[in-house]
C-alpha cells in the first residue's frame, strides 16, 4: 500500500476508534436513562425514584391477576423470578397481555411499594409458533398433568 494511503487509513481507524470509545463512555454513563424500564429487582433494591413517572417491566406472575368486578381496575404482579412488584391499573389491557408474558408499565411507584400504572404495554418475545403446535404442547402438558 502506498505510504500516503496507509497514513490516511490509519488516521481514519484512529478517529473512528476514538469516536467509538467516546460514544461507548457516553452510552455507559447514560445506561440508566437508556434502559426503557426498571426491573423488579432494581425497584426492590430501591434504585427507582418514588412518585416520579417511570416505567417498570417484568413477567406477569401466574395467578396474580385480580380484576374488580364492577370496574376496569385490576392488579397483577410482575416478576423477574426473584423479586416481584404489585401493579395497579385502570384501563384496557393490550391483546397480548397474558399471565406469563412480559409487560412494561408506565406510572408511578407509591410509597407503599405498589406501582400505579397509567399505561400497560405488552412485550412480545422472539418466539413464533403456529397454533397447532401450541395446542399439541398444551394437550401433552395436560395429559402429563392428569397422569399424576
Amino acid at each position: 500500500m502506498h505510504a500516503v494511503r496507509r497514513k490516511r487509513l490509519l488516521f481514519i481507524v484512529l478517529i473512528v476508534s476514538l469516536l467509538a470509545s467516546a460514544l461507548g463512555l457516553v452510552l455507559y454513563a447514560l445506561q440508566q436513562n437508556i434502559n426503557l424500564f426498571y426491573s423488579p429487582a432494581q425497584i426492590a433494591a430501591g434504585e427507582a425514584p418514588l412518585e416520579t413517572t417511570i416505567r417498570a417491566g417484568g413477567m406477569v406472575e401466574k395467578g396474580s391477576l385480580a380484576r374488580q368486578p364492577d370496574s376496569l381496575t385490576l392488579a397483577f404482579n410482575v416478576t423477574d423470578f426473584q423479586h416481584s412488584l404489585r401493579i395497579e391499573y385502570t384501563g384496557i389491557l393490550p391483546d397480548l397481555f397474558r399471565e406469563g408474558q412480559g409487560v412494561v408499565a408506565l406510572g408511578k411507584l407509591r410509597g407503599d411499594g405498589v406501582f400505579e400504572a397509567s399505561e400497560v404495554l405488552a412485550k412480545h418475545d422472539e418466539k413464533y409458533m403456529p397454533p397447532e403446535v401450541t395446542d399439541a404442547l398444551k394437550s401433552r402438558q395436560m395429559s402429563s398433568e392428569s397422569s399424576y
Partner: protein
Amino acid sequence: MSWAWLHRLGSPKWFYGRFKAWPKPLFCLACLCLMVAMVWGLAIAPPDYQQGNSFRIIYIHVPAAILAQSCYFAMGMAGVVYLVWQIKMSPIFLQAVAPFGALMAFIALVTGSIWGKPTWGTWWVWDARLTSVLVLLFLYMGVIAVQSALEERSLADKTAAVVSVVGLLNLPIIKYSVEWWNTLHQGATFSITEPPSMPMAMWLPLLFAVIGLYLLSAAVILWRMQTEIMRREARTQWLKQEVLSDGV
C-alpha cells in the same frame, strides 16, 4: 499486495461496460423471489399462536430492517474506500445506495409501528432499538442532504463519506441494543449460531423475502449508479460513443 483490481473496479468506464446488462435480470429475479415470499408469507404460512395474522408484517419488516443495516454497512465501507483511495466509483456508489437504504429504514420503522400498535399497545416508545433505527434513518438523510446541498462535487463527496463512516458506529448499537439495555423490542429471532425460534414453515418465506430484497437492492443500486456515471462523465468521449452505439 496488489490493488490493481480495486483500481479497475474504480474506473467508471470499466464499471459501466461491465455491469450494463445486469440490472434487468437482477430485477426480474428479485420480483420473482419477492412474489413467492409475499404469497407464501402473507397467505400460506401458518398464523402465530398469540398474534394471529398480524405477525405476517414480519415478512416486510424484518427484510427491510436487514437491508437498511446492510446498505448502511456497504455505504460506510464505500466511504472508507473513498477517503483512503479516492476512487471515483465510491462516491457514485454512496450516492446510489443512500436513498434505497433510507427507504428501507423508513419501511422498517413504519411497519414496526403498525405492528406495535396491536401487539404492544403503542405506536412508538423511545426504547434503544427504535431510537437507534430512527438515528439510522437520520444518518441516511444526512448523507443525502450533504450530497445534494454542497455545490462543489469533491467537497460534497468527501463530506458524505465522512458522515457515512462516522455513522458506522450506530450499527453495533442497533444490533446489540436489545441485549445491552431493557427494551420493549424483543431480541433477535434469527442468529447464525443458534436455530431460529420459529418453525421452518414460517422462516422459509422470510428467507425468500430477504434474498429477494437483496436482489432488488442490487438492481436498483446498479441502475442508479449507471445514471450517476452518465451524469458525472457526461463530457467524456467514451460515454458519447457508448450512448451513440446504443442507438439512443
